[in-house]
């Protein structure tokens, strides 16, 4: 629990474990609302189920109307696509499948890495409407978990539960005035932290190459321009007001210098490189153990 005496509500959703902590137990109605929100999100965005809205785009080009959250995801992805020179892209799903991270979890690489299609060639994303010109496997995994955390937080606020803490398996949203001390998970050892940071109101999200790794050098953070896993960064953390932004920036740090991201986003960040050195913004000063 983030605070003594709080209680937790845990469940599985969009392929990960969630724990929502509140000062007092959530009512049955609140819980149902939260679970419905998770189910709706999965039904729209999961590339792992054939009946999702987004799965249709993988089968045939066309016009796909997504839920309201798409209107926030689109511009965020567009900005990061631009800043990363096409490396961070929602069109990465095909490249992931190619390396074996597919709906059937074949975890078998099918030939050399395959770059994602250029955005302008295949996708027009206007608000909640995605128009595609070819079958494309869209994967919003870099920001989706964070966005769902934001949506769940909104559900709680609207239900009168203003203070809460959402833990989406290591992506965190603190919707309360009291700061929470958070350990930064060691990239290669979840039983260990490399530092401790204080999370005030807002979100702290992480990305690491050690997770969703399934073979020699294969992990889930791919460079869209090559379709191959990123090798220079092994872990990253980003803090921002919304979990969607923090989540996306954590992945963006694999491709874009944190100082550059800071020019476009109100954020704090920490990047750990494969040679063992770290770079960080002022808010992460003194956070790492030494």
């Amino acid at each position, binding site marked *: 629990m983030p605070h003594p005496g709080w209680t937790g509500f845990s469940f599985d959703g969009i392929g990960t474990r969630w724990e929502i902590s509140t000062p007092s137990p959530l009512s049955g109605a609140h819980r149902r609302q939260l679970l419905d929100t998770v189910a709706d999100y999965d039904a729209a965005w999961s590339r792992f189920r054939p009946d999702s809205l987004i799965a249709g785009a993988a089968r045939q080009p066309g016009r796909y109307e997504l839920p309201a959250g798409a209107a926030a995801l689109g511009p965020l992805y567009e900005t990061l696509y631009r800043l990363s020179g096409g490396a961070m892209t929602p069109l990465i799903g095909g490249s992931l499948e190619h390396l074996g991270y597919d709906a059937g979890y074949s975890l078998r690489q099918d030939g050399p890495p395959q770059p994602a299609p250029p955005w302008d060639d295949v996708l027009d994303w206007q608000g909640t409407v995605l128009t595609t010109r070819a079958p494309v496997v869209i994967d919003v995994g870099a920001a989706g978990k964070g966005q769902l955390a934001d949506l769940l937080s909104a559900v709680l606020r609207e239900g009168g539960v203003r203070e809460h803490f959402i*833990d989406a398996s290591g992506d965190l949203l603190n919707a309360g005035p009291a700061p929470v*001390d958070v350990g930064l998970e060691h990239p290669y050892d979840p039983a260990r932290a490399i530092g401790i940071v204080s999370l005030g109101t807002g979100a702290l999200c*992480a990305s690491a*190459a050690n997770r969703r790794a*399934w073979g020699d*050098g294969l992990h889930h953070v791919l460079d869209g321009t090559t379709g191959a896993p990123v090798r220079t960064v092994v872990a990253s953390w980003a803090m921002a007001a919304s979990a969607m932004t923090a989540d996306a920036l954590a992945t963006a740090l694999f491709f874009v210098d944190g100082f550059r991201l800071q020019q476009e986003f109100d954020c704090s960040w920490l990047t*750990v490189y494969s040679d*063992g050195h770290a770079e960080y913004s002022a808010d992460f000063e003194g956070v790492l153990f030494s």
Partner: protein
Amino acid sequence: MNTSLRKSVVVGIAGLSLAGSAAGCAPGQASGPQNTSAAPSAATGGSYQDGTYSADGNYVSPNGNETVGVELTLAGGAVTDVKITQHPSNPNTRKFQGEFAGGIQSQIVGKQLDEIKVSKVAGSSLTSGGFNQAVEKIKSEAQA
């Protein structure tokens, strides 16, 4: 793209030993210690008895359920030694666990158990459960 890419360099972050290429499979949801065995040797004036303590943790990796063992040695209330016991069945997991087993010691040694307690962990794999449960278990055994 093979294991020769692996580097173990420590720059900037003390005790952080990292591999140049991610390989193997990472622990997922840590479910906390499943079974423990304690072998305290002698008591001291500190709040924790000196001794060597071990706990197993289970997690789900893409290879299925895997187990990792952690052995802590306490002296004067501080951790003086940490060992990772590898017993995964899958070769990828074994390789992965080997990579972090080599880097764990210098990071955590000398830190007080209470000092390293956090209420949440930000990372890509788990809630704070795995970390704190293991530490709590060992603390309660050491106080017994």
